């Protein structure tokens, strides 16, 4: 056993004791959030694992780093931070992790099977892998994710166990208009509402169309894991553990039932915008979680070759950029004024112009963290709104959907 394996096992054992887990469960894959630079201590920890001969025991992907390695200079760090952020990313690669650098690893080929036990970090990735793929992980904090990946085990408690995965609250969306439920921007708003009302309770949502696109589920989970600590949700008729409401609740009466109203959604949507005046627009950002190929196809159709009038960022994984390159879409999008950001994003790394401006986004997660992390006030809108605003050079929002 290498010194790093010993260290990883002690960390997992301490975490298990703190979490009240009676034992450990073997995991088949891991996703690591600890590769984002928060300070030099994290670099020293990762390098200590490397020095101790650390290697992950299971296939492991990496979440975003603090640098865009494909576009040097896009992230405006002082020299010391840039060098340390790079060292951190390099250390995690040396531990045997795949340099995927994306918060949507599930759209970059890392898709565990239903019922598999995994050790995943990063709140949106955790919500997606539990809810949409039906694999099992707890919300692991920084450092515990890599410790589990090296040890090959995780504390056996919480969402690894059947009894904690059943829905305790039932939320019915059936009373909302068909048009709202079919719209892409409904899902991050529903997620934002869910996170602020469910906290960390598991909810089953009824009354949603059976053909909800995967990107909508991704947006829902990311928003719910931002406004709350949601790590698992069920959508009846859609997600794998909820073929029926009875399956989702385990046949046990829920503790609460809530019927969604247009008012509840409208106020959740309003809370995602923090900018006080929207007579100004400084930047537009898409891609939290990282933009998928399907989302780029939508963006391309909406732009139709027209030129944007404000800085417009689309954050995505390097795997998607490779496909954009191959199809000639990258050149076309850049020609319209889209700035592609790879490996990182505008809310975790200094990319936007500093100062107190207005940032528009279709992401519930960007909208929630945008102001604290970038200093800009946020305006939430649909993808259509974001493109229309980008072309017009001012905030344009279709309010009809929310009336």
């Amino acid at each position: 056993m290498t010194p790093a394996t010993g260290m990883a096992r002690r960390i997992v054992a301490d975490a298990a004791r703190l979490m009240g887990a009676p034992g450990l469960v073997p995991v088949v894959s891991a996703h690591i959030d600890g590769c984002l630079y928060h300070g030099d201590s994290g670099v020293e920890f990762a390098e200590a694992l490397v020095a101790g001969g650390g290697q992950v025991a299971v296939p492991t992907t990496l979440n975003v780093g603090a640098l865009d390695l494909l576009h040097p200079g896009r992230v405006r760090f002082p020299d010391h931070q840039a060098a340390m952020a790079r060292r951190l990313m390099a250390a995690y690669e040396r531990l045997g992790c795949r340099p995927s650098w994306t918060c949507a690893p599930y759209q970059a080929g890392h898709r565990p099977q239903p019922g598999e036990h995994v050790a995943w970090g990063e709140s949106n990735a955790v919500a997606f892998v539990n809810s949409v793929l039906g694999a099992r992980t707890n919300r692991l904090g920084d450092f515990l994710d890599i410790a589990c990946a090296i040890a090959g085990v995780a504390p056996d408690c919480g969402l690894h166990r059947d009894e904690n995965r059943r829905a305790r609250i039932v939320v019915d969306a059936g009373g909302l208009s068909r048009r709202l439920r079919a719209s892409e921007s409904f899902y991050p708003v529903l997620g934002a509402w869910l996170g602020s009302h469910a906290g960390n309770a598991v909810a089953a949502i009824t009354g949603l169309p059976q053909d909800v696109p995967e990107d909508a589920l991704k947006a829902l989970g990311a928003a719910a894991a931002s406004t709350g600590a949601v790590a698992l949700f069920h959508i009846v008729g859609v997600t794998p553990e909820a073929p029926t409401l009875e399956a989702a609740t385990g046949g046990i009466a829920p503790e609460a039932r809530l019927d969604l109203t247009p008012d509840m959604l409208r106020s959740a949507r309003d809370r995602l915008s923090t900018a006080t005046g929207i007579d100004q627009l400084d930047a537009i950002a898409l891609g939290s979680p990282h933009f998928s190929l399907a989302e780029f196809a939508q963006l391309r159709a909406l732009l139709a070759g027209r030129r944007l009038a404000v800085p417009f960022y689309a954050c995505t994984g390097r795997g998607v950029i490779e496909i954009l390159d191959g199809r000639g879409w990258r050149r076309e999008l850049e020609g319209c004024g889209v700035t592609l950001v790879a490996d990182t994003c505008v809310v975790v790394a200094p990319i936007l112009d500093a100062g107190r401006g207005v940032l528009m986004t279709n992401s519930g997660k960007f909208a929630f963290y945008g102001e604290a992390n970038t200093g800009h006030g946020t305006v939430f809108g649909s993808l259509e709104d974001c493109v229309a605003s980008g072309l017009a050079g001012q905030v344009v929002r279709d309010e009809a959907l929310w009336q």
Partner: protein
Amino acid sequence: MIRARVLLPGAGAGPLLRLVEPLSFWGGVDPASGIVTDARHPARGRSIAGTVLALAATRGSSSSSAVLLELIRSGRAPAAIVLGEVDAILSLGVVVAREMGWQTPPVLELAPEMQATLPEGQRRVDPDGTIA
């Protein structure tokens, strides 16, 4: 004198800082200085460095462990941490710091209603969980 449950053992002393509102270390505490930066928190602008920090509740960001590790490394961590309920993510910052061989604060569990009875001023935490 109060006896708390020891989550991670150690000793430390400093002025009591009692926070009733939930605090998230990530996005709520500056990792370089230990100053509370959460704009919505009543303790905004106060430093947690060197205090016996009694937290009735935490709000769990999964990167709070990273912020606490950074505070420990730079010597700006609390002298002792008293949690209203176990927060495994935050405590992990101390677990990892101990693995790194850095000097770590003790982490204790004490119910919020008991935290409320701790007298203001200089407090000392002993390895057995005694707060005097």
